[in-house]
Every structure is written in structure tokens, then in C-alpha cells.
């Protein structure tokens, strides 16, 4: 008679002699560490590539200078002249003393004039921003006609003695310039002579 062998795990490791880690296991540990480090570096790289959170709302800026045309999505314009004076008048009933920067321009819509006005017209001087004066008859909020430029003037009142150095004019067809075209015109105010009084150009077709 033969006694059948006891059932049991055929390859049970002996408790007395734990096998040493085989060389390929150490290699595997190294591989896991290397992969982890690569992933961390890749994540850092992605963070470097990532745009800031408000990047989708940034404007598309076209920069130009006085006398040079610029075009964005729905605004084509040329600042034709920049004047500075101690007084400004609209040639009709309104006149005001102060320190004024007067900007003459031709502007048109490009694709459509539904809701297209020269709604944004700002002056960035130093770290301050001025919007065009609402007084007098000016081309602030001028109607833009598709493909046909209209001419007009806007005026900015600024503190006395501040018209020096570089300034930037900003124009857009809406108050909200998020993710839309903006035209920026760089002006060297040191080249703009101070006059006693200037008159705003009447609004009309550019000729």
C-alpha cells in the first residue's frame, strides 16, 4: 500500500532560506523610479507650457504708429494727426481750457457695422488710462461704416505737464475687448508741439 502524498503547494518557499532579490527586480525598481521622475518632469513641462487662466480672454492687439493704417477683425483705422493744446473747441458751441491731447483719425468697419461703433477709445499715459471726453461734438462712439472710412477727432483731458514720453492709444469696436481685436497706436508725445487752442475736426467721410 502506498500512502498518497499530502496535498500542498508544490513550490512553497522554504522559510529558512528567503531567496535573495533577483537582479531583474532591482532593475525594475530603478525603472519605476526613473519613470516617476520622467513623469514629474513632464508635468512640470506642461505647467510651463500652459497659458494663464485668463489667456482665452486676451485681446488680439495690432500695434501701429501715427499715419500708419492698422486692421483687426472689424476695425480698420489710421490715426492721421495728434495735437496738444491748452484749450480745445468743437468749432460749434463747446470750448474748454485745460491740457488736451486731440487725436484725428479715419476709421471703418471691416466685416459688419451691426453694433460696430468706436466704443473703446482710450489713452494710456504712464500707468494711467484716460477715456475720450464726452463733452462737445466729437467722434467718440462714431458709427463705423463697412469698408468706407469716416473721419473725426476725439480729445483727452490730462493733468497739466503730463504730456511727455511715450503714450498708447487704444481703439476697439466694443466696450468689451475680450478675445477681440484692438488697435494700439504708439505716440511719442515729446514730438507733439503744445498749441494754444485746437479745433476738433468735424465728423464726416474720410477724403
Amino acid at each position, binding site marked *: 500500500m502506498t500512502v498518497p502524498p499530502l496535498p500542498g503547494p508544490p513550490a512553497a518557499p522554504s522559510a529558512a532560506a528567503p531567496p535573495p532579490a533577483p537582479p531583474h527586480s532591482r532593475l525594475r525598481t530603478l525603472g519605476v523610479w526613473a519613470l516617476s521622475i520622467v513623469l514629474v518632469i513632464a508635468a512640470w513641462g506642461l505647467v510651463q507650457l500652459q497659458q494663464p487662466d485668463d489667456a482665452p480672454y486676451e485681446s488680439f492687439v495690432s500695434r501701429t504708429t501715427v499715419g500708419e493704417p492698422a486692421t483687426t477683425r472689424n476695425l480698420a483705422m489710421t490715426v492721421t494727426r495728434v495735437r496738444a493744446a491748452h484749450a480745445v473747441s468743437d468749432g460749434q458751441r463747446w470750448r474748454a481750457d485745460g491740457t488736451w491731447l486731440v487725436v484725428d483719425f479715419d476709421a471703418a468697419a471691416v466685416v*459688419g457695422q*451691426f453694433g460696430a461703433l468706436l466704443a473703446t477709445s482710450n489713452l494710456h499715459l504712464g500707468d494711467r488710462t484716460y477715456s475720450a471726453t464726452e463733452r462737445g461734438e466729437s467722434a467718440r462712439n462714431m458709427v463705423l461704416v*463697412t469698408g*468706407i472710412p*469716416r473721419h473725426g477727432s476725439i480729445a483727452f483731458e490730462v493733468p497739466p505737464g503730463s504730456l511727455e514720453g511715450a503714450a498708447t492709444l487704444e481703439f476697439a469696436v466694443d466696450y468689451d475687448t475680450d478675445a477681440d481685436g484692438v488697435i494700439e497706436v504708439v505716440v511719442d508725445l515729446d514730438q507733439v508741439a503744445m498749441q494754444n487752442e485746437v479745433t476738433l475736426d468735424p465728423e*464726416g*467721410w474720410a477724403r
Partner: protein
Amino acid sequence: MTDDTTPVRQGWWRSNLLSLGVLAMLLPATVLGIGWWKWDHAFPGSGQPVWAVEPGKSGTVQLQGATWGPVRFKEVADTSGLDMPPNAKLILVGVPVDPTGEKGPGCWSPKLVQKSTGRVWLTARTELGLLWNDDEPEDCVPTSEGEKAERYELVLPYVVPDDVEGPFWVDVEPLSAKSKYVRFSIDP
């Protein structure tokens, strides 16, 4: 535990049949519901013009309590007396409006759209140096309290650059017309 896995899996599907059925209904319902909600808010709810109503053989369109058309148009050759810009032409469009109800419909500013590019023009009456004239309205005429709407014609002067060629659409979008608007084709 059992050795045979197949009956177990069948049992899982069977025991979760109700939840699975509900899921199969909820998933498409979610997609359709959100889709409809977004569409409703993006288009008809927001009043965006989506569906053009073009005239048939009669040349007229019935929309929002009025009969629109038939459209008249021409390129004006004699622009003397008008403040015209250089290198531009004047396209004059007439759209008769015949209100069918007591009150005439209101509308957004009628647009001239170049078919090939989609560029849009609005009427340029003020820019041409003309004052508002009740006999030549640029916009839909509102009906005053106690008055009955009468037939009139929209007179729409558009100033476009010389090099802009037709054909064009003339789009008139009545107020609260559930995203429908009147669209005439012209080629002056």
C-alpha cells in the same frame, strides 16, 4: 463561491437589469436634454436670427403680422445733393410693409448682406446728410396707441464701396419673431 464563472456573470446582469434599463434611458435623455437646453438658449431663446423666410413667386413674405415685399432696388446714379464718400456707390432698397393686424411689427435695423463674403451694411441716411423723414422710414414704423397700422414702405439707402459687387441679401428681422427673419435677394 463557485467554480463556474459564467452563471455568476449572467446572474449579475440579471440582478441589475432594472438599474441597467434605467441607465439606458437616462443616458440618452441627459444628452438630448442638455442639447435641447443649449440650443434653446443659444438660438430661439436668445432671439438670434436663424431661419430666413424667403419670398415665393408672389415676391412677398408673411411674417410676424405683416406682408413684406415685393422688394424694389436700384443703384442710384445721380447722387448730387447727397454727402457721398469717394469711391462708393449708393444702393437704394424699398421694402413695402403691409401690417395684417391692428399693430405693425417692430424690427431691428434692416441689413444689406453681401452674399459672397457675408459683409454687412446698415442704412446710411444720417451719414448721407439726410434728416429723418416720416415718408421714408429706415426702420419699422411703430403703431401709436389708438391708431391702426397702415401700409408703408421702408426706404433703405446703403452706401457700399465701389468694388463691392452683388448679389446681396436684404435682411429684415422683426422683433420677437422666434428667430425667423425676412430675406430678399437683390442684385442691383
